[in-house]
């Protein structure tokens, strides 16, 4: 598989693993609306049902342990706009940071499977969409390193999606 495709596939899989570990259902929305993955929590009580949608960008960095304030991601303007404004289902941008070499994506031992390296999230709901942006093909977004994506944070983001 071509490196970029492999990287993208790996990034989506990492997030899917976190969702599965939390016991949440996940999948690709139909029809294709540019969202890479939805994560849902189903409950017999519909009032507790929740769903979020994720747009996943994967980026390789020389030193995944040292990304400073965060990771800069470039989004198509159309995709950026999808994540802004009022939404019935909250949507987030997720940046998955990987090592430069695909051989280092996964480390398997008898004790554990280690996925390298991390995923971070950001909400763009309140980001302004300016006329200047509309004239550009892409928009640069910083995904902060403080927003580490974990099983727990996925649960918290789902809580925010409840009525």
């Amino acid at each position, binding site marked *: 598989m071509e490196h970029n495709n492999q990287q993208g596939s790996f990034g989506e899989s990492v997030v899917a693993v976190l969702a599965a570990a939390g016991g949440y259902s996940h999948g690709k*929305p*139909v*029809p*294709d*609306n540019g*969202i890479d993955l939805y994560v849902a929590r189903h409950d017999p009580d*519909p009032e507790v049902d929740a769903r979020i*949608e994720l747009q996943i960008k994967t980026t390789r960095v020389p030193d995944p342990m040292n990304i400073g304030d965060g990771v800069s991601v470039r989004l198509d303007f159309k995709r950026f*706009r*999808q*994540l*802004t*404004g*009022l*939404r*019935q*289902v909250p*949507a987030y941008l997720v940046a998955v940071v990987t090592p430069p070499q695909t051989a280092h994506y996964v480390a398997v031992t008898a004790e554990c499977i280690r996925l390298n390296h991390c995923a971070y999230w950001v909400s763009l709901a309140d980001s302004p969409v300016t006329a200047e942006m509309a004239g550009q093909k892409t928009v640069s977004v910083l995904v902060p390193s403080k927003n580490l994506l974990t099983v727990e944070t996925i649960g918290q983001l789902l809580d925010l*999606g*409840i*009525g």
Partner: protein
Amino acid sequence: MMSDELSLAELSRLQPRDIARYLRTSGWVEAGRVRYAMRWTLETADSPARVLLPALITLTDYATRVADLLYAVASVENRPARAVYTDMALIDADTQRVIVRTNAPPGTVAVADGLTTTAGINHLLLSAATSEALGENRFVLPGKKPKRARDLLAQALLEPGSEVFTIRIPLSPISGQLPLRHMSLPEPPFGRRVSQLLYRAAWAAHDAAARSLATQDLNGFAAGVNSGVTADLCAALAALGSTARDGFAVRFGWASKWSIPQTYNRPTITFGRALLPVLTEAADFLRMRNTAHHAHATVTGPVVALRQATQNSGGTVTILAGPGSSSDLLDRRVTVHLSEDRYRQAIRAHLLTESVTFDGEVTQQGNALVMSEPNPR
């Protein structure tokens, strides 16, 4: 993209109001608010189905959420999402669905059964359109259907299916701007009035059949004539069920462009198997009852047919009732039995294309109106 898949552009054109109307007429019930959407629920045999209807078209994910709803509704109704979308998007047409399950394998229908159902739908719609066009209640409809009714049948669209036959009845657009002081809405278009009559008549026939099952009394059908029940309608309903494994259902959907009174709030009429022979009986019963006595009446118009029994014994003429006739005879053909002298006068009037006028007692015999003891004017 699958051929049945809907594009986001198509989905974004559906208005919340139109979707809500579809859900309501399909039996869904509004059940609270969730963020920027309304929750709707439907009781099903398994468990309650739930969908969320986005309330704001300005939501960034409006089209996607409409897609979620559409695919969920399609799954509940066991129909393609495209078909559900079309029902929601057609705001200028009432939609009736006839649901007939036969013994054919799922997804198919025997050719002969499909034709029977299609013919039944044609007769059902034509009977309702004829009743509405005539503007009066009759036990039996005339053989020659009014042009307005035939025109509606020519414009109505049928989407045949294996189990669900969908009928689209076009509604005329509201033409022009209403005057500012016009406080009431214009009269609904002919297509809507036909749909409403069909709803009332089908429910009346259903209820009369259910009562008749218990009481063995068919008089409920005679009372139903005031709601548009006719022998023709009963026969059409019976025909629709003739191929069904276990009865059939008619489901009404109302175009959102024209408001519909709250009284039309029972969208699905299910005719169980037990009701079908009653409907056949009712059709015969109404035909038998079709001998109505008319009060003293006047008929004025041209002689359109002449028939002499034997030489010098008078004859029978048919007069097309025109202006000056009793109002309930207008545009109908009235048969008059005449003595020899009067028959000769009628021949003369016929040759000169003059009108003739008679007073007398009119009775309905089958579909014919017959005037007895006529007096010329």
